[in-house]
């Protein structure tokens, strides 16, 4: 049984990676849209750097952390939509007739979005360097940034899998997109929390876990090695992955029970 597990994972992961990377609609928007938004926002919000206490003279450097997290949000939609399609066309039911283990199914399923997450992160990193952003944490920081991006993509991918297993509907997954965007916008994506003047907004950004993901990635770009920001980012992303995996496993058991 133990020897079969890697084989199960390998087959499903290969299918998931190929299926994700073969669809331009999955690959192109997560590369283009976050980069475009960061560029336009960086130009429009450049006067923010004139505020006393703003942590960097380059708003582009400040903004470049956002695509890493925004790209991961797309992972939720991609993983969810693909799994919902597998549910709708009966693929999951046929898998249920095989000795496939639930954990392998979920891990294999998010492999595609994890692979895409890595490609996205490399693209954003390359774009930032070409645009003149200097990575304060150096080459080792770049590796940590890639690791964080992959972990976040896996976490959000598992959230997408959970949603798909609960709803079984690709349309329902798409409709949740604005809800996910709330987490991005009500965060420290456009301003450092200590400079936010609206107390209620600062409070919302502080309780929003996405703020810590952005701040962890940002610290590597603009500050160097900030152990607190990195510890919080990795703790939040690990907690997201564990919680989403547990929720998705439970939802998978419930769906298989119904099957």
């Amino acid at each position: 049984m133990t020897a079969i597990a890697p084989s199960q994972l390998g087959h499903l992961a290969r299918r998931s990676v190929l299926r994700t990377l073969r669809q331009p609609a999955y690959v192109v928007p997560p590369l283009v849209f976050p980069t475009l938004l960061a560029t336009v926002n960086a130009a429009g919000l450049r006067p923010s750097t004139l505020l006393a206490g703003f942590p960097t003279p380059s708003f582009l450097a400040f903004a470049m952390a956002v695509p890493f997290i925004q790209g991961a949000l797309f992972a939720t939609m991609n993983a969810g939509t693909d799994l919902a399609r597998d549910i709708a066309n009966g693929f999951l039911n046929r898998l249920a007739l095989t000795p496939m283990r639930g954990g392998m199914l979920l891990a294999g399923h998010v492999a595609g979005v994890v692979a895409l997450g890595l490609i996205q992160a490399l693209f954003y990193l390359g774009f930032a360097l070409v645009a003149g952003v200097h990575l304060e944490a150096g080459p080792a920081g770049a590796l940590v940034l890639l690791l964080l991006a992959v972990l976040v993509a896996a976490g959000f991918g598992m959230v997408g899998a959970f949603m798909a297993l609960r709803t079984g509907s690709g349309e329902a997954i798409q409709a949740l997109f604005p809800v996910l965007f709330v987490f991005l916008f009500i965060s420290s994506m456009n301003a450092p929390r200590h400079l936010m003047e609206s107390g209620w907004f600062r409070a919302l950004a502080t309780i929003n876990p996405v703020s810590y993901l952005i701040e962890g990635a940002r610290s590597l770009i603009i500050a160097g090695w900030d152990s607190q920001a990195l510890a919080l980012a990795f703790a939040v992303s690990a907690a997201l992955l564990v919680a989403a995996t547990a929720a998705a496993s439970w939802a998978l058991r419930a769906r298989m029970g119904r099957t």
Partner: protein
Amino acid sequence: MSARASSFAASRSVALGVAWRTAHNALTTPNILIPSLVFPFLFFTAFAGGLSQLERVPGFDFPAGYTAFQFVFVLLQSAAFGGVFTGFGIARDFESGFTRRLMLAAPHRSAIVVGYGLAALARWGLTGALLTVVAFSVGMEVGGGGIDLAGLYLLAALVNCAALLWSAGVAMRLRTLQAGPIMQIPVFLALFLAPVYVPLDLLRGWIHAVAQANPVTYFLEAGRGLVAGQPAYVGVAFAAAAGLAALSALWGLSGMRRAEAAGG
């Protein structure tokens, strides 16, 4: 009844029928209604709440405050996207074959476009009204009078009309929902390549040059001037909005001709 009056009555009937059906679908289908309501409020909350410290940037001198500054952007954005989202509905009607049947029944097919336009306006009317209520309830300050505010909403209605006609032109040429990004991305870019967060004078570099050539800049400057009670660029903004609506009308109606030629 003369032939002319009869023809007008038929066109009016088609326009109102299309408008009713489209608005009814948009306002009673949660998957369609929720994003169009959520996004403007999300932007308003994120920008007015999260970026209010920009008021302290040297040279930022908007007297009505940052909430009013962002309200104008979000109002115009909601108007533009009300038009674009209605364009998605037109594409869906083509995909489902509804428009093909509609074209067979309508004596004047331009009335179909008018109907979609009325629906887009009704749809944005709801979003705009809710946004206004929320903005006032969070203490937005307004220096302008009733006529100034009416001017702002009229400007937004023209933007809604131009965006709808642009999207309709795309939808009628491509006749598939996959054309959604083609409708959406140019509008999104035009909106964000304008002075969204700070006044035009505070922008520097390439964004300043692009914003100066972007008509949306003048919609924003005029709208903000009207809200503050210090009108500026109002004539330029209305002329640009009317011109854009006229060009979009040509685009939309020629799209209808293309759809007719393709058999719906």
